């Protein structure tokens, strides 16, 4: 094992896939000479050249559509959308074109594209640089949605996403880029659609997404001091979803808290709650609780943002309300 920062893991995964497959190329704003707005592509232009690491104009619709055309004709683009909020500019390309091409054309064409983009609040970035919009995409058949938490998961899942024949939205978290974690020295991949139990427990299941996995682990530490045992389920991919892992955990604990940083209303947690209500209702000993952001845009000022962001404190409160 080696210790490495989340952001450098992204770079390492990209470097390995660029080296492995000549059809893989990177495109996005500032990804070349600038090395990426968060330095994810640092050094890759120098190593692989401007044909493989392409600085795109400030035109998300244009370069997303271009990458789709490239993907349909033999290449494997990895597109960077600088902030997840900017996907709004290329929603037609993602939701109407990329997601549906295989289906509309009866399986004749495929779009093996990976769209990397960071979501998440916490840096006073304001309403246009902080949103968690993953639920929009899990509502679109044809897309796969990956939302890893740890550096080790980031690497294995990013490599699998790039090798996948379907379009994958790979969501990173800006607030985790500096996080250090252990990853295996040797090459590895992690299959899409496999959840990971980040902590085993027996009293309450916390289904936590992305950065909320760490908040759930903090909550679990706090609660273990009070004799409450938490199981933290990290789905790692939202589509395909490892339903079995969630249902198994709920069958064991009988209680479920769902935690995501996105706005709670119509968030992905609603889908998880519905699945458990439909398929594991008889195992529940308490109502399902959701932790998420309030129904407001992400604010700028520090105290406002701190008030707004869901955290371990909210998870602790939700867990206690079920016992």
């Amino acid at each position, binding site marked *: 094992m080696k210790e490495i920062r989340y952001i450098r893991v992204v770079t390492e995964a990209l470097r390995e896939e660029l080296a492995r497959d000549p059809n893989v190329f990177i495109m996005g704003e500032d990804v070349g000479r600038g090395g990426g707005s968060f330095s994810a592509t640092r050094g890759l232009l120098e190593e692989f050249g401007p*044909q493989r690491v392409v600085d795109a104009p400030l035109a998300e619709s*244009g*370069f997303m559509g271009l990458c789709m055309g490239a993907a349909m004709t033999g290449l494997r683009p990895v597109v960077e959308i600088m902030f997840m909020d900017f996907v709004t500019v290329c929603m037609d390309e993602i939701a109407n074109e990329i997601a549906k091409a295989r289906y509309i*054309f*009866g399986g004749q064409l495929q779009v093996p594209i990976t769209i990397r983009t960071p979501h998440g609040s916490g840096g006073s970035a304001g309403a246009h640089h902080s949103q968690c919009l993953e639920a929009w995409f899990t509502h679109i058949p044809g897309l796969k949605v990956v939302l890893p938490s740890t550096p080790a998961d980031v690497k294995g899942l990013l490599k699998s996403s790039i090798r996948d024949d379907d379009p994958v939205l790979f969501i990173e978290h800006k607030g985790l880029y500096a996080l250090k974690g252990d990853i295996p020295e040797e090459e590895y991949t992690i299959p899409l659609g496999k959840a990971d139990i980040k902590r085993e427990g027996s009293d309450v299941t916390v289904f936590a997404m992305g950065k909320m996995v760490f908040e759930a682990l903090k909550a679990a530490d706090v609660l273990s001091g009070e004799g409450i045992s938490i199981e933290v389920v990290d789905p790692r991919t939202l589509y395909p979803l490892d339903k079995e892992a969630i249902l198994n955990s709920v069958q064991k604990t009988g209680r479920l808290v769902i935690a995501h940083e996105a706005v709670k209303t119509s968030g992905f947690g609603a889908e998880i709650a519905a699945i458990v209500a439909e398929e594991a209702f008889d195992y529940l000993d308490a109502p399902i609780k959701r932790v998420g952001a309030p129904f407001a845009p992400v604010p700028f000022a520090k105290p406002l943002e701190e008030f707004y962001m869901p955290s371990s404190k909210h998870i602790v409160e939700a867990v206690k309300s079920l016992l």
Partner: protein
Amino acid sequence: MDIGKEKALDLLVAMLKGRMFDESIMELFTQGFIPGFIHVGLGQEAVAAGVCRNLRKDDYISITHRGHSQIVAKGVDLKRAMAELFGKEAGFCRGKAGSMHVADSSIGIIGASGIVGAATPIATGAAFSAKYRGTDQVAVCFFGDGASNQGTFHEALNMASLWKLPIIYCCENNSWAQFTNQPTVTKVTEIASKAAAYGMPGIKVDGTDVLAVNDAAITAIERARSGGGPTLLECMVNRWHGHYVGDPQKYRDPEDLEKARKQDPITKFEKKLLKDKIISAEEIEATRKQVAAEIAEAIEFAKQTPEPAPEEALQDVYSA
């Protein structure tokens, strides 16, 4: 330009196929054989013929919602194309596309989008891919004057010129975006002039003159194939029918419509071929009969071939 008898016949056949394909589907739609809604390109056939008959099988095209003559000219199997419009299992897209999205990727047709203007960057991506892979394939993006007002048009042209991509942006300017006349919503109506903003040649031709389109296409394709970069080709055409089949076109001046319908690219070409003694009247008649028979055969096939099994609705959402 003397194009020779073989090429002349090839262009004529492509135009006739486009014409008769659209004429028959108007009838079949009205009779209830074709579901959904359809858009026909009667009067615009010379553009597809003049461009696509100069492409190779492995060159790419993206088509418009008014794109039947484009796929026909690229060389699709008429039976499977017709079957797709009927929503049959034997259709190119197994009944998932219909008229709006019919495509055959084996001859480089990378589809059509139901979103006007969406295909412009996608076709640009096919050209990017050809250059990246080091092939000499080219891409043609068909679009209309309406699509030129989408941001994607401008974004795509910038990238294509910046990266010298092998693509031809072929505008069929019929001056109508659904029910709205071009000057109502467009300050600069000459699409070709917009090429200047992106540093590429902008060529404007009479899109009812198949030879003019043919000549301009040859130059643009040669430029793209040899690494010279993109061209914006504007072909002035007339839309004879409404936006969709059944559109009564109350928004159009009947006199203008009458004038538009007199601009028939096919009779114009046939007259020229007869005058120049390239083809005889008998040969034209025989050609028309032969194309009509092919279309009839395609219709018969589409009528007989089975519908998809209902469970097919869930196939091909993902690779596995």
